[in-house]
């Protein structure tokens, strides 16, 4: 199955159940509830920004749509938000990026059981078949695309170091895919430590890598925030010429440097925080048209190169 395309494999079943008809009665506004984690780090900050921008745009485009946005700093708060939306705002659809899969599964299922449309973003629920629409980035491709670049651009026997994120399944998926992609290339991974997707932590970890290893050919920082810390540590050691760095996500500062052909940052791998916009736009279509939008939408991770960087550059976004 081609995962990057919009699959409508569940279409038949859902259409048979009669859910495909537009839910709008004449003159009534459809309310879409949006529940996402709050902006605690760069990626989520970007995601929050894109959510707000998209809601503004959709409201202007479709006067018969209304949105309720709630951001939560913790799992419990997110559950409360969703319950409040059901109880007081009478939502017709819920777009949710679950803080954690397990605890959010039954609250979201309750929304679904009440006959509402459910769009789940990025982090899947622990039970299948609850959501009408699933929109997510592709963590396996994220690791694979980076790995393929390393394989294609390093000789056998080259030495690299890797910074991992916060220990999670998501991080494991990326790292496993990366390992698989460079398998058989003769590239040696000297070290793999957790930098927690944090600039300061990545800075210290990279400083220690540099003290420990006399020769490093490339760094997979796996995240643009970590890449910033890594680059700073490298420039402190004066070894800029020796190695290049690949981050991930698509932070504007990094994309800018790729556009400017910085030799230290040849490419970046996308994992766009704007995926929330995809989810919102598609969900909105369901209420303003007969477009079938149930299924899974997996946003591919692609390579940002100096040639295509301009289309990934959003100077106004905070991320």
């Amino acid at each position: 199955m081609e995962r990057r395309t919009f699959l409508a494999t569940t279409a038949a079943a859902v259409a048979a159940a009669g859910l495909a008809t537009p839910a709008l009665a004449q003159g009534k506004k459809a309310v879409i509830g949006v529940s996402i984690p709050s902006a605690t780090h760069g990626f989520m900050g970007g995601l929050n920004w894109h959510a707000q921008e998209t809601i503004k745009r959709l409201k202007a485009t479709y006067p018969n749509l209304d949105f309720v946005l709630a951001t939560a700093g913790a799992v419990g708060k997110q559950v409360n938000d969703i319950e409040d939306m059901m109880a007081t705002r009478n939502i017709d659809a819920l777009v949710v990026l679950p803080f954690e899969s397990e605890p959010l599964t039954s609250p979201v299922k309750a929304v679904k059981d009440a006959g509402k449309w459910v769009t789940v973003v990025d982090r899947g629920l622990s039970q299948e078949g609850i959501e009408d629409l699933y929109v997510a980035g592709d963590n396996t491709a994220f690791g694979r695309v980076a790995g393929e670049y390393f394989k294609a651009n390093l000789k056998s026997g080259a030495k690299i170091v890797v910074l991992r994120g916060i220990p999670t399944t998501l991080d494991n998926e990326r790292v496993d895919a990366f390992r698989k992609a460079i398998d058989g290339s003769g590239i040696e991974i000297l070290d793999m430590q957790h930098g927690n997707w944090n600039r300061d932590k990545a800075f210290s970890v990279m400083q220690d890598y540099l003290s420990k290893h006399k020769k490093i050919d490339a760094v997979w920082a796996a995240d643009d925030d970590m890449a910033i810390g890594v680059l700073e540590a490298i420039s402190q050691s004066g070894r800029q010429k020796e190695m290049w760095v690949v981050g991930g996500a698509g932070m504007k500062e990094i994309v800018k440097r790729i556009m400017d052909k910085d030799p230290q940052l040849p490419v970046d791998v996308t994992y766009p925080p704007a995926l929330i916009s995809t989810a919102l736009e598609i969900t909105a279509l369901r209420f303003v048209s007969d477009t079938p939008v149930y299924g899974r939408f997996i946003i591919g991770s692609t390579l940002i190169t100096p040639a295509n960087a301009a289309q990934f550059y959003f100077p106004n976004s905070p991320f």
Partner: protein
Amino acid sequence: MADQAVSRPASSFRLPSLSALGPLLALILLVALGAFLNDNFLSQGNITNVLARSAFIGMIAVGMTFVITSGGLDLSVGSMAAFIAGVMILAMNALLPSMGVGVPLILAGMGVALAVGLAAGLANGLLVTRAGIEPFIVTLGTMGIFRSLVTWLADGGTISLDFAVRQLYRPVYYSGLFGIAWPILVFALVAIAGQVAMRHTRFGRYCEAIGSNDKVARYSAVSVEGVRLATYVLLGLLVGLATIMYVPRLGSASGSTGMLWELEAIAAVIIGGTALKGGYGRVWGTVVGVLILSLIDNILNLADLVSPYLNGAIQGVIIVLAVVLQRGKKSSA
């Protein structure tokens, strides 16, 4: 042994008792372990890295020693550092068009950092002393406030210093005097001043008196509220100073800046032998505690001893051991 443990009159030249040497012993063991595991451990580059990294938490921990000694606590310092860094960067970016890139702009930024630190410390201190709220609750509240404010200022993203200013400011972290990096020098000065203030000034003695029994201190005509307020203000200023050294490193601040610094600072203070319930403070011990904490991290990165998943566990074990070492000796002495 027993002779040494008998408390002598407070003379300025007494030797530290054996129990006090616990954390120092732990530090020496760690250094020996590091040197054994990796040849580069004792290289000048690595030592500079570890000491410069310790400097931020170190300066904050010295201030925290006074707060804890006088029976208080401050959980807000990590968020406060992030908030100060954010305000400082925004102020410097805003002043850039009128002042131009130059030393006065950097000095203005430093002034802003110290002023915000002072104000933040004053706010904590006044809420504790004038409003009479438990320091744990006050600073838990301000911790959330500062953290949210910086996230809000950054619009959920990152606040970055203007590139040209950053180039000028960068040497404050990366270069130094006689081969010793600036953060290390400043940290050393703060530590020495802190040690002197704790042992040889009225302020230090008042802190200990208030921490061991604030009623008795009050009856002895010590301005309990005044001294407590001063400890929070001092800590706020030191957080500002730490931020001044921190900002040139990465030139940015975000909602995740200074995450958990408060716990590291408190841990360093306790490892160093200061009593968590107050009444006794040891600034040089705090410095040792800070070094122990950064060395653990450094050694774990330099040597592939265990799975990185277990790094946190190793840290925990060493922290507890360092404290057990000194408490154990104390009870046997």
